[in-house]
């Protein structure tokens, strides 16, 4: 049989409205690393190969295209590099489970403030933060990759809803900005 054709949920869609750009992005493979009790040392050793360590809660770290994102108690997602065999942890492929949306621009915080019940002020939520929270009714992972740049990880099946909701927030913001008083 012929090769199966791969498709992302939103086929790389992108839109800019006012000061905000919304785009589906590809972060490469996503691997869940869930450390077993007593497995921390072995995992640390395994991650050292990539120059990474298990991240602190609510944070992520990067090294040469590989990124490790905090996901929960003794749990992280390794993205951007192929899965690696690790002693001391349950390793599960999550590459196909998520859609990643980049929300960038000076109005990005304002757009997300319409959906996310979280303090996203730069001082409180600096670059390098990664949190699990919700956007309207969807569970999401939010990473701050720049002063004006966020990545939102959402379940792949909900990608269209996530897109719709962020886009709606952007449209309302743009309409506000377009009025004089």
């Amino acid at each position: 049989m012929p090769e199966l054709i791969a498709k992302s949920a939103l086929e790389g869609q992108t839109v800019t409205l006012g000061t905000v750009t919304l785009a589906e992005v590809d972060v490469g493979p996503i691997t869940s690393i869930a450390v077993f009790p007593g497995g921390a040392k072995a995992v640390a050793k395994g991650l050292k190969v990539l120059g990474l360590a298990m991240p602190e809660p609510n944070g992520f770290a990067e090294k040469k295209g590989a990124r490790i994102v905090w996901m929960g108690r003794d749990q992280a997602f390794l993205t951007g590099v192929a899965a690696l065999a690790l002693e001391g942890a349950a390793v599960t492929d999550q590459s196909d489970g998520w859609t990643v949306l980049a929300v960038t621009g000076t109005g990005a915080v304002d757009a997300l403030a319409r959906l996310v019940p979280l303090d996203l002020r730069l001082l409180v939520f600096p670059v390098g933060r990664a949190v699990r929270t919700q956007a309207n009714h969807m569970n999401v992972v939010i990473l701050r990759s720049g002063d004006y740049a966020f990545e939102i990880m959402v379940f792949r099946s909900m990608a269209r809803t996530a897109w719709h909701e962020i886009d709606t927030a952007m449209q309302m913001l743009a309409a506000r900005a377009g009025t004089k008083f």
Partner: protein
Amino acid sequence: MRIDGKGLVDRTKPVRFRFDGKDYAGYKGDTLASALLANDVRLVGRSFKYHRPRGVLTAGSEEPNALVEVIGASNQTPNVRATVQEVFEGLVTQSQNRLGSLKYDLLAVNDYLAPFLSAGFYYKTFMWPRAFWEGLYEPIIRRAAGLGSLSGRHDEGTYEKAFAFCDVLVIGSGPAGLMAALTAGRAGADVILCEESHALGGRLLSDPQTIGGMAAGDWVAQVVAELNALPNVRIMTRTTVTGAYDNGTYGALERVGLHKPARPNLPRECFWRIVAPHAVLASGALERPVAFENNDRPGIMMASAVRTYLNRYGVSPGKRVTLFANTDAARATARDLMAAGITVAAIIDPRPDASAVGDCPVHVGAEVVGSRGRLGLSGIQVRKGSEIIEIETDCLAMSGGWNPTIHLTCHMNGRPRWDEELAAFVPMEGAVPGLVAVGAANGSMSTHGALATGQAAALKMVEALGRKVSVPLPEAEDAPYRLKALWAVEGTGRAWLDFANDVTTKDVKLAAQEGYASVEHMKRYTTQGMAPDQGKNSNVAALAVLADATGRGIPETGTTTFRPPYVPVSIAALGAGGRAEGFAPQRFLTSDQASRDRHAPMIEAGLWYRPSYFPKPGETTWREACDREVNMVRQAVGVADVSTLGKIDIQGKDAGRFLDFVYTNTFSTLPVGRVRYGLMLREDGLVLDDGTSARLGEDHYLMTTTTAAAGLVMRHLDFVHQAFCADWQVRFISVTESWAQFAVAGPKARALVNSFLETPVDLPFMGVAPVRIGGVDGRLFRISFSGEEGYELAVPTRYGEALFRDLLARAETMGGGPYGMEALNVLRIEKGFITHAEIHGRVTAYDIGMEKMVSAKKDCIGKAAATRPGMWGPEREQLVGLKAQAPISAGAHLFVPGQEVHRETDQGYVTSVCWSPTVGAWLGLGFLKDGRARIGEKIRLVDHLRGLDVICEVTGPVFHDPEGEKLRA
């Protein structure tokens, strides 16, 4: 009447608007109320109960009288306060609560019936005869109840919600709020300043004075300019903080687009949830009316409102004004009017010791006892000693003192404190953690007091935030607040307390007399404080009258409970983002487009959208398509997307042990490469979920849950793991979204599946194996939910659509094709497989005939409770099959033929039904008392809702291939 040279409205920007079908002109910066007063429109509404003519009373959001309807292109908003609504080009408004025109309201007859309509009249009047309750009284009451009307159409307006966070939230931008914001802002704290109006300044915009050696307006402009320049200060105008909630959370309503013509995507309102560890309540105070006979005529207004209209809007509400006030401060209104060239006919001051000096006649120790003018004030009667003086006037400015706006401090059950000197309630310190009331809201009635307390509170907060700042306090007026409490003037006529709900002093006295002496009872008996203004203008005066009537003091009488919201909030704003697509996320399958391409109607299954059936040309009903799809699976091969089932990847040395604990049956003994059906109980012994789990490796399982319970099961597993075995070597994660999984079922399933595999496999029933499909690593399970030989083929989600399209194309060459949810349901009923229609939260393993699956050799969640008396035995309703030759329904109940049909004779109920093309009969699954012992009996199925009454045969739940030969073929 507009006064030249006065006011802050923009005279270069005229605005045309409409009220009750007539066009008027106003200016940018006007409210509807100020613009109508500028056009000498005094009559703006009718009162709720008596339909009395009413005019503008206040200049703020507390307005009880001037409620109008604003008419948009697609909506109509009732009860809009004319004192809040800003005019804009094209604004269309109309008066409400009238039958006929505003001038000749037919329901004004109610006013003449007033003797029969006193407090509680409806409790007394509409009691008898009982036969009139529904047919006569209810329609009359419904017609009369409510204020304003809606368009009757769906509100298509845009509404927004948003979250905000700051260090210091400042509520109100009068002198206290501005000083607090400036202090916290200069210290570098993150500040949000909310102001209800469109302009900052509060009373400083209405009351001319000097601050720090400059005109108050200039001082405001200077502070606002500095605040605007500070990046750490966010100013939110047109935003009312509506409620204080736990842990520093505040609700706020922003009027985003209500003051301008509608445009696409521009929100009408935005509801903010603001989180702030510190908040300054600088909400000022509300001036209170005095109750005297006929004190509700258009033209009788609050003194502060008259001053606001004059100084802020450049409008005099009258040509010959009188003042009735019990404070020194109110005299300023008269001075400002005279300075603007308006005649002040008299000042009536009830305080015997008040100054009699003025540039107009001053009546000290006098009271207004009555008024005249049907549609607008034309004169008042003043009692001075034993003398009654008649004074001609078209506007009476009244003041009974001020009530601090303490509402937010009471939103978390805090009770205010009575201050005898102010004759008003003031906030109890610390009633809302983090919230500090300052200025007039805390009883500091002078401008100096406002500035000083605003600054002091901000300094404390700044210090708590670890910051330091020094801000000089500007000099300002610090006159004492001298007041003699005056709630109601003695008299025999009707004197209004609650203008909005037409409650008079008599009503309150009547309540006390009839035993409703508690303030909460009085409120409910008279409806005082229950109108849109929520008693802002009347609560304290009503209390005072009640206290007087019951011979208690005001502190003993107490207040009613203040609850959010402070101002009316539209449901649309509260629920913003929750309509249409925003109601719940939509989950789409990778096969979604391919199914829609084949015209499959999509149905919701939880949040998922799944194809109902796949119509073929010539098929006119869903049943035709469904029957064909069932036959197709039974005779050839069918393909269905089953990716919605929950999939949980479980790993670790204790993975099998963990499954043994959460499932009733044993999984630690399952060989690698095999799949087992598992039953999961809740701890109370009822069935939680079922599904298959596969052992992929020595320490690696894949659990499947039902679509409906996927989230529930995950939460349950997390609880069991974290609460009881956190130290076990087991971790798990959802992989539902990672795999696209397709059921391939039917006699030709094996051939179809093998045609996809790079290396064909010969899987036994309930086997699993890794496979390669089209260059991709996948998994193949031999499991069946149809009763036919069945497989499920899983590939990473990104390949789902491609595989689905390929599967369909190839299936169709074999006489097969896709099948939808309808056929899937028929197939599983024929086979007697249960879903959440059966395991609906009230059934036990025993009820569904699976008690043998509860292993005796080990403990598991729910085992202890499942074995207790009452959870098993012949008195339970047990799963059976039902067979009939006429249509039957899920939800129907079962009875013994010949017996009466009522609740006591109920034998059970039906959970699933279908027409079975395989069996050629209507089939059902249901629960019947002692059902397993009654197989072969006839039972009567009754559904009163659908009008069904059918005799069925009781059978075992499995109709198709009961021995399972096809599955194992």
